[in-house]
Structures are given as C-alpha cells and as structure tokens.
C-alpha cells in the first residue's frame, strides 16, 4: 500500500492509453451549464484555467496565467498570460478569450452554474485586457480567496463560441451532440468520440502548452478512455480484471479487502488518500415557519437537545461499525482531511449517556410513563423519523447505529431510507424530522462554501434560504463569515473561522459523527499518480500520468 510516488517512478514512458471508469454520462462538454461529476471531469481534461489549485498540496499554481500581481487592498489582480499558448485548433489564446469567458459566465441567458462562485462581495468580477497577454481583474470587494476563485473558471475559445453567446444559444453550445472536432480547448486532451452509454475517448492535444520538468511536451499519454460503467460492483470487477486502469471515485469501505488482496498480488495499487474532507451529517429540520405547530419543535430547537444527542453517540464505535474502521470521529464540518482549516480544539462531546440524560432532563424531557421514551411536560414523546438515501450501505448502517444509541437515552427514532429523488423533495420542502446524509463541500476554503454557512444560503440545510437569520447565533455566523470571506490576512481569517466553528459546535444545527478514510485503487501499470482527497482523485493531474511500457 502506498507504493505509488514520484520517488519510486521508473523513467517516464510516452504514449499508450489508460481506461478509467465513470459511473454516469456527461450531460455536456460545457462546464458552464452543468455541475455533474462527468462534465466536471471532462472540463478538467479538455479545458484549462488561468490558475490551478493543486489538489495534492492545495497551493495555488500558475496555469494559463504565468505570473500575476495583486494590489495591497486585494481588489485588483493583474495577470500575465503564458506566451505562445494556442487552442487545440491552433488559434492563439489571448486576453479576449478570458474576457469572453467571464461574459459568458455572467450572461443571464446562459444562467451558468459557475456564476455564484465567481463573485467577490456578492458582485461579479470585472476584467479588462489592456493587451493580448494581460488581463486585469477588479473585485468589487476584497476576497480572502484572492485568485483561487479563478480555479473554477475554464477558459473557453471566443472564436468558436462568441456567435452562440450572441445568439443566446451558448447554454446548448458544446453539448454532447457537438461534433468532437468542434470542441476546442486548451486542456491536455481533445475530444475524439463520445458513444452514449459506452465511452468518451480523448486524444492527446498536440498543441498543449505545458511542458514536463525535462522540457518535453505533455501529456505523456496518447489517449484517455472514460468507460461508462453505471454499476459500482461491475466497476470494481473491471478494474480487478485489468479492463480498466482506474475508477473515477474512491473505494467503498466494503471494497477495501478484495482490493488489498489484489494489491498484495501486484495486480492493483491501493492508495490511502487520507481522511476525506467531507464528514457525514445528521440534522433536524429547524425551519420555524414549517415546524412551529409541531409540539416536538419546542425541544428540538433547543441546543441542549442536540447536545444530548451528540453525547449519546459513541463516535469511536460509530466509525468502527458504520465505516468498518475506515473513518475517524469528527465533531465539526471541517475534517482533518482539510488540513488548512481543520481546528483540532473544536469543542467535543465525549460519549456519555449520563450527561445526555441530564441534558434532556434539564429541558424537561423525562420518561414519565416508563415506556423507555422521554416526554415533555405535555406528554409529547421524543420520537422521530430519520430519512436517508436508500441503497447506500453506510447511510443505512449509520442511521441504524444512531437509532440504537439514542434509544439508550430515551429518544425513539425510526429509519426511513428513500430514493434520492424523494429524499431531495422532502429536504427542499422541509418535510422530514431528521435526515442523515453526506453533503459534499464544493471548496476546501470556507469562503467558497458561503451557501452552507450563511443563513440565506441554499445549502444551509437545517433551515435553507432564510430571508433574515432565524436565530441570534446564525446572525453572528453570517457576520463572521462575510468578514472572513473579505479578509486578506490569513491569520485573521483563521481566527474568524474558528469563532464560527465554536458557535456551530455550541449550537449543533448539524451533528457530525465520522469522516471516512478514503482509499483508491489503480492499475499497477499507471505511473505519475499524485493522489488527492478531492475528486477526481487521480485524473486531476492527467497530463502527468503515464503507463509503464
């Protein structure tokens, strides 16, 4: 395990192809209008950004932008494009392409999924190109994320797509019926073929601008094939059979043992990526306008109630049982996998049933009739239904574990696994008591996830899209997060975010029990792998991958 690494690499061989499996179809080759995993992966392979966040070190790297300067107030960033870069069709890539890309992102008819994340102080970024190699970005307000924002903006060719933007048809440009040769990009690969239900084939971009450390052209590989395998067991069998070289996502806990055996036999390489950046999450719907008439809301909205639950769940046993030991206990949304923002001293709730019962007693929840379930003064039982997604092993194990833990302190919980569509419908309508799920943070920097932290955010899932903060502590979090997002001093940002984590840990709108350790498998012939806990774990660095001869 862990045998992959640059130090162990043999001399790099050029040519060859790798086959990676993906679970779903790409919806488009235009990342501006789709956020599905396959479209995002294709965008990484076919397009290039101005800057790149290295998925292994999390540092900002020059990409199409070779150098840049930022003003002291953090509002102006002057970037200098790498000279001599051309699109895959040979046309030069200039500042006009960058301006065009920004125009497309903010165009109302395009309704881009990237627009919300490309803002500073809630306003779109403005840009000007004083010459073909220079672009000056002006932010409406300072942004703590600085140029990291631009990692989310694939630059698209103006000469190919401007007519579509002008005609109002940009949203359907670069769709999956577009002839492959028309999908021009500046990424390491160019589209060769897409067969729905079967595969996407990409060939090496002979005009790719990036060079290897020895000065030779990248990428090393001649071709990448993304094989569409919708079933996860079949995906595992295929990599074990040597038909694919890698999968698009991490292994499930139950797949670890067979893959470890294959690793020991030399057929596969098993890598431990580390603790994942996303923890599981358990929360109650706390929307007063929906739940006010529910007599249970009187105690569910009390932080003491949620703290009692936190004390009642044995996180060590949870990680062992639910994730088959491939997880670590967590007490907040930021896991040890997010090394930059993880706060090890976040308030914790060590497992203690007596403390949990005491907290329940303090808010008037006592088992008055001896049936094992606590009630309030009016006889309302602490009895709930928790919904989760059907068919995902650890979701179902997790809810069953929590149910058993809470039963010991007198909270009765039934588990209702639902299809994803029904689950989301309930979530959006707040038509549930409690929910167990694993939301994925879109950015490791908390300022990139304001939709979760701010009370007005659509991902503030216990009470989404509030017009005004429902509680005083949410108001304080809003203020701190907006300050943190606009702060340029890294130390101050860290202090502000710790204050946010402190408030969240005290009020527990969301309870986190464990963050899974992530494992990944790839074929033994793959070289140049730099694993990341972020998706895609290996293909983010596709231009430096090669295969042994």
């Amino acid at each position, binding site marked *: 395990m862990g045998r992959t690494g640059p130090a162990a690499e043999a001399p790099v061989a050029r040519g060859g*192809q790798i086959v990676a499996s993906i679970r779903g179809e790409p919806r488009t080759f235009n990342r501006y209008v789709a956020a599905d995993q396959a479209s995002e992966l294709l965008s990484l392979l076919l397009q290039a950004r101005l800057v790149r966040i290295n998925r292994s070190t999390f540092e900002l790297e020059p990409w199409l932008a070779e150098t840049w300067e930022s003003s002291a107030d953090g509002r102006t960033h002057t970037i200098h494009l790498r000279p001599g870069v051309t699109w895959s069709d040979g046309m030069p890539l200039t500042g006009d392409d960058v301006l065009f890309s920004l125009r497309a992102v903010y165009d109302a008819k395009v309704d881009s999924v990237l627009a919300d994340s490309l803002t500073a102080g809630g306003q779109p970024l403005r840009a000007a190109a004083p010459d073909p190699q220079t672009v000056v970005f002006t932010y409406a307000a300072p942004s703590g994320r600085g140029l990291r924002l631009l990692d989310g903006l694939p630059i698209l060719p103006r000469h190919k797509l401007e007519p579509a933007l002008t005609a109002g048809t940009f949203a359907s440009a670069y*769709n999956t019926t577009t002839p492959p040769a028309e999908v021009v990009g500046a990424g390491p690969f160019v589209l060769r*073929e897409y067969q*729905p239900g079967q595969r996407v*084939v990409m060939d090496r971009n002979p005009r790719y601008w990036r060079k290897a450390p020895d000065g030779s052209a990248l990428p090393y590989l001649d071709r990448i094939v993304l094989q569409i395998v919708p079933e996860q067991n079949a995906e595992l*069998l295929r990599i*074990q059979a040597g038909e694919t070289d890698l999968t698009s996502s991490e292994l499930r806990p139950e797949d670890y043992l067979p893959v470890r055996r294959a690793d020991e036999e030399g057929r596969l390489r098993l890598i431990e990526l580390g603790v994942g950046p996303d923890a599981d999450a358990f929360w109650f719907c706390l929307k007063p306008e929906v739940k006010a008439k529910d007599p249970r809301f009187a105690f569910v909205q009390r932080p003491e109630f949620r703290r009692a639950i936190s004390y009642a769940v044995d996180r060590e046993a949870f990680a062992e049982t639910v994730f088959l030991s491939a997880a670590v206990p967590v007490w907040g949304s930021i896991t040890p996998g997010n090394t930059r923002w993880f706060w090890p001293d976040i308030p914790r709730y060590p497992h203690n049933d007596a403390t949990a019962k005491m907290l329940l007693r303090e808010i008037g929840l006592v088992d008055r009739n001896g049936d094992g379930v606590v009630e309030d003064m009016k006889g309302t039982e602490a009895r709930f239904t928790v919904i989760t997604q059907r068919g995902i092993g650890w979701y179902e194990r997790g809810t069953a574990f929590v149910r058993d833990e809470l039963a010991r302190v007198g909270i009765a919980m039934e588990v209702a696994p*639902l*299809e994803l569509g029904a689950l989301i419908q309930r979530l959006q309508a707040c038509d549930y008591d409690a929910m167990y799920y694993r*939301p994925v943070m879109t950015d490791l920097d908390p300022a990139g996830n304001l939709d979760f932290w701010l009370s007005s955010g659509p991902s503030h899932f216990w009470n989404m899209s509030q017009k005004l903060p429902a509680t005083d502590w949410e108001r304080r979090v809003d203020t701190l997060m907006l300050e943190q997002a606009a702060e340029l001093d890294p130390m101050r940002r860290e202090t502000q975010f710790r204050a946010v984590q402190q408030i969240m840990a005290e009020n527990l709108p969301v309870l986190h029990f464990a963050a899974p350790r992530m494992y990944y498998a790839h074929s033994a012939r793959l070289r140049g792998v730099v694993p990341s806990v972020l998706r895609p774990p290996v293909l983010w660095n596709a231009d430096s991958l090669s295969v042994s001869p």
Partner: protein
Amino acid sequence: MGRFLARRLLFALILVLVVSSASLLLARFAPGDVTAQLGPFATPAEIANTRARFDLDRSPAAQWLLWAGRAIRFDFGDSFLYNRPVRGLVGRAAANTAALAVVALALATIVGIPLGMFTGSRGGPAAAVVRGASLLFLSVPPLLTSLFLVFIAATTRLLPAGGMTSAGVLDTEWSAWLLDVAIHLPLPVLALALPIAATLERLQSQSMADALHQPFAVAAVARGVAPRDVIARHAWRVSLRPICAVYGLAIGALLSGSFVVEFVTAWPGLGRLMYEALRARDVYLVSGCAAMGGLLLAFGSLIGDLLLAAADPRIRDAQVGA
C-alpha cells in the same frame, strides 16, 4: 392475411400509445422528479429552469398533450440525463438490444428445442441431467446469473467483464469491430439465453411426450416407421404449437430489453437505458423507451403468431379468414 396484418398493426399502435403515455404519467406522478439530479442543494432558479425545460411546470394533462403532439411528428422530447433527443438514444439502444436478443434467441432455440426433443422422447440418466439443469436455470434469477458470469469473466479473464466493445477498437476495421462485439456477446447472451433455453426445453419436452402418445404417432410406430422418423417427421411439427406461442412472448421480452442483464453487463441497450431513465425520473426518456419496448413487444407477438400459423394450418386458416 392483409386484414390480419392491419389488425396487428393497429394493436401495435394502441399498445405503443398506451404504454408510453402510462409510463410518462407514472414517471410524472412518482415521488421526486428529474431535478433531483441537480443535487440536494440546487438553487430554486436551477430547479425552476429544469422543470420548465421538461414541461414539469405544467399540469400532467397539459404535459401529456404537448408530448403527444410532438410524438406524432416522431419528436419524443429531450433526455435530461443525456442532454440530447430521445429518438436517437432509443433507436441506438434498441439496435444494440436487438443484436443481443437475436443471438440469445438463436442460442436458446438451438439448445432448448433439440434438448426438449431428446428429453421428451427418451428417459435415462442423460435426460434427467438435462431436466435438472433446466430447472436450475429456470429457478436462478437473471441478476444472479449475470453477476456470476461477470464474476467468472473477471476472475478468469477469458472474456470481457462487460460492455459492448473494447476501448481499443476505435481505430480498427469494421471486421475487427464486429469481432470485438462478438467477444463481448457471450456474457449477456448466456445470461439471457439460459432461462429461455430451459423454458423451451421444458415445453418442447412435455409437448413432444404428448405428441408421441397421439394416435397418429402410435399408428406410425405400428406401421414400422423408425422412431427417429416418427419424431422428426410427424411428432415434432405437432409439438411446436405451444413453443410458438411462448416464442412470441420471448421475442417481445428480449427485444424490449432486460433491465438486469444489460445493467450488470454494461450492455448499452434499451433495458439499461430504461433503468437509468426511471432512476433519474427522466420522463421523456422513460416514455421513449416504453414506446420502443411496446413496439418491439407487438413485433415479437406478431412473429410468434406467424410462426404459430406456419406450424399449425388450422390457426393459419383462422387468421386468414378473420
């Protein structure tokens, strides 16, 4: 015969209309909708736009009318999952399923009917082994058969563990492509053909045993006709009637695609497409797949009727007279 064919065509049209409309409405009424694919925290604007694009912001009746009006012009709407017109997707998937179905049916026929003739006309340990094997293949669910075959393929590496073609076939001649498809066929074909072969064997066996006890067969034996000739020239044709009746259903079922087999073996056919569409509540793709499935079911049923008429003159006369 013309009236018979016209009647069957009308039946096919009604079947397609009813099945596709019912699928559209059921997919519409089921909990959740296609916007779930946008993720749990999609913005209200994204959800509203997607619902408008797929006419989910209209009443079910209005949506059906809109869809039916377009479907008359062979425009079955767009798929959310694939972001392209349903018509092309369904056509391609149906062709892939048809290739699978034809080979599976041929294999099931070649194996099932001779074995049924054998077990229906003879006893002994060999016939008992065949009967046992048939019962086994009839009782094992296709999911288990598919998973078992994929597992065997993956561990032995004798055959590809799934898919329809290999990744390396892109730059090759069509003959190499065909060979590659042929290499990928055994897994799904076996998973589909084994239970059908077992069904045909059991039916043929029973039917052959009955035919051999009919007076004409007994008389032929009494006239000194060799047993092999009694079976081949006299009893077999009579025994085909129940086989032909089932054959039509088998053709229809195979052509409309197997959810399980195509999903597990990653065969890009109609069954897998329908399964993915249903999971995503991709309404227009669901109704497009259902329409094509209904059409192929009607086609299979027609083939079954024609075979039945060929095998039994009484039925042929009744069909022509009708």
